[in-house]
């Protein structure tokens, strides 16, 4: 009872905190647990970009930004706690970097009128803005990823995959299961055999899956992994001498920490991407000057230029551009979550805009509309080179199979709408 009273008093203090004269961005990060390897750089990039805006420009439109970090540990229960504890502060947009937490939050944010941006993860059919009013997953989603990987393999094989064997090694969760339906549809279309190999959380134990790969000798292995699972998979692939150039990971399985433990043997491993690589962008000069050198970098400050750091940076850039759009649309600088939602729906990213931000070519050009919350779905391919320790671009951002994906999105979102009695918008 006493404990309850103490927290009651504490949270009363929190609620009666400072007045809201700032833009509040919650950062549901995970710096602990088996997925921290990916969570730390993403969160660092996300934080650093907002710090940069505060330091260099005094916020967005003159309004300072306050990032509220909350540790979820990639755990849905803690994610709910984080959401509830931050939403009262006027949170503008949530980016949980977890498909499990996304599924929790989709109905909640819709009821509370707060936008949710799941960049390259989450529920793929949320790309249908007619049904999912508050959820955005631009610029690319898992089904784009699945199709992008198959398109790349088609190109490699002269447009014909019939009779080829493809194995999908996936995290046995909502995240890993997302691409299955698309890969099955594409298997019918292109005539390849698909083998499904689930790996249970957290993914340290993959001996049996790779034994099966060794026995069945698939032509290609596609991976939907995250956290510690990636490193283990790359190592196991090296152990059974699976040809690395036939092993393709989704964008969440394509960071430095995923391949470095396997050393030289990881050379040739491929991954998808929807963001730019490395630190060779003008924005990094500003980051260095305003954030790193003044000691304001988030975390240990050692992640700059890494793959997932860039994704965090990109996510923050898209959020801040949406804030700018919302400020222009509504003519006020202190925007509400509802205005933020409008801003995200009217977001337009052009090459000129990215260049002015010092991030030319960092991502594809796209615009969001009421119907399409998913962006263009352009997917690039990169390859790891262990001798230089860099990811090299193999294929630029290329379109994916819009016909198959569009049909699947329409089906899945219609099922969601029927389950939850949602009337389509945008008419």
């Amino acid at each position, binding site marked *: 009872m006493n404990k309850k009273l103490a927290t009651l008093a504490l949270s009363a203090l929190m609620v009666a905190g400072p007045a809201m004269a700032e833009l509040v961005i919650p950062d549901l990060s995970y710096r*602990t647990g088996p997925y921290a390897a990916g969570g730390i750089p993403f969160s660092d990039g996300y934080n650093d970009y907002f710090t940069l805006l505060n330091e260099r420009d005094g916020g967005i439109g003159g309004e300072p930004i306050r990032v509220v970090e909350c540790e979820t540990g990639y755990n849905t229960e803690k994610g*709910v706690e984080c959401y509830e504890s931050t939403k009262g502060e006027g949170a503008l947009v949530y980016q949980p970097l977890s498909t499990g937490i996304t599924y*929790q939050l989709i109905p909640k944010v819709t009821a509370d009128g707060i936008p949710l941006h799941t960049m390259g993860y989450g529920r793929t059919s949320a790309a249908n803005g007619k049904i999912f009013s508050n959820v955005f997953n631009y610029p690319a989603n898992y089904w784009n990823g699945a199709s992008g990987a198959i398109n790349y393999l088609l190109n490699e094989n002269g447009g014909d995959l019939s009779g080829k064997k493809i194995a999908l090694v996936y995290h*046995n969760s909502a995240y890993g299961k997302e691409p299955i339906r698309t890969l099955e549809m594409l298997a019918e279309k292109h005539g390849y055999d698909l083998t499904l190999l689930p790996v249970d959380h957290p993914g340290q134990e993959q001996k049996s899956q790779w034994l099966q790969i060794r026995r069945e000798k698939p032509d290609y292995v596609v991976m939907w992994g995250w956290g510690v699972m990636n490193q283990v998979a790359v190592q196991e692939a090296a152990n059974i001498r699976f040809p690395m150039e036939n092993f393709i990971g989704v964008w969440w399985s394509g960071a430095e920490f995923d391949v470095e433990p396997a050393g030289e043997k990881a050379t040739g491993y491929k991954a998808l991407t929807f963001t730019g690589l490395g630190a060779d962008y003008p924005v990094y000069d500003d980051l260095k000057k305003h954030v790193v050198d003044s000691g304001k970098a988030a975390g240990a400050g050692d992640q700059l230029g890494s793959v997932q750091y860039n994704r965090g940076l990109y996510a923050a850039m898209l959020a801040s551009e949406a804030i700018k759009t919302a400020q222009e649309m509504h003519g006020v600088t202190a925007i509400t979550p509802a205005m933020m939602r409008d801003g995200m729906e009217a977001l337009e990213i052009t090459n000129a805009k990215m260049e002015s931000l010092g991030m030319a070519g960092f991502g594809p050009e796209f615009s969001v509309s009421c119907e399409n919350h998913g962006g263009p779905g352009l997917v690039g391919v990169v390859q790891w080179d262990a001798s230089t320790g860099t990811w090299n671009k193999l294929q630029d951002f290329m379109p994916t199979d819009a016909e198959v994906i569009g049909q699947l999105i329409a089906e899945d979102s219609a099922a969601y709408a029927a*389950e939850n009695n949602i009337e389509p918008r945008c008419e």
Partner: protein
Amino acid sequence: MFYREAGDFKTSYTADSQTFPIKFDRYRYYVVLAVAFGIIPFIINDYWANALLLPFLIYAIAAIGLNVLVGYCGQVSLGTGGFMAVGAYACYKLMTAFPDVSMFIHVILAGGITAFVGVLFGLPSLRIKGFYLAVATLAAQFFLVWLFNRVPWFYNYSASGQINAPERDVFGIIITGPNAPAWATYLFCLIFLTLCAILARNLTRGTMGRKWMAIRDMDIAAEIIGVNPLKAKLTAFAVSSFFVGIAGALFFAVYLGAVEVGEVFGIQKSFLVLFMVIIGGLGSIFGSFAGAAFLVLLPVVLKVVGVDVLGWPTDIVAHLQLVIVGALIIMFLILEPHGLAQLWRVAKEKLRLWPFPH
């Protein structure tokens, strides 16, 4: 002074055998009920409901369930997470198959289905004991999680394998889904917890509870004096799984709203509930409450103090949280192996003599 039985005369057998024979205890119980039902629903907000009170209430139900099995009947179980998953998936299937039926009925039916599954997995307890039984229930845990991951019928063939709670109501008041008001979800779980606690308390005080305890203390002796071990053990499994199933159904439908079986109902959930029972006190209903409160509220309090009050980095606080909770668990087990309930019992003994100890 206030807390003693002297002067509190009972004139009937009913009065003599009531749950709280001491007047002060009884009034305290009424006050807790009055606050929980009469005051908290009016001041509750989303944060309080979803971050603290709902998990506390639901884990308390699960802990009571496990306490019946482990604390009263002495059958060690590591299958709690799996049985909670049965409750959750049963509730989901019922909710989607019969949308017009009240949530009360769904949750109770989900408990019933779990009780049936629990009895099935309880059958080996007739032949194996102790650690070996723990391993057998561990198999139940892994099998059930695997089953719900593997068979698409359980999750209605959804693309992600997740189950999502649609909006359902009780007498027109929305209980599940994002639009459910905080007070309604809170009251819904509170009613279940109250009913479960009263039921468990009375079961354990009656014939059935005495049989369970006889089995726990020495099963051969119990058999010789006429306790049927088959019946006693299987009823313990049934009652325990019934409560755990209710907790699982509420956990999914009311608290989380969307569930992925491997993550939410994995082995760590079984351990968490077992720790609640051990820390709270084996064989005590109050202990189940205390254990649930300790393990649900303490991490949140530490987080609020560390991040919001002291302003420390979130990862340091998350690590410290593990260290502190772990240290406290070890401390409790060394200083008071019988759990928080024993502390409470000792405090009551002292109070009874206060202010004139011998």
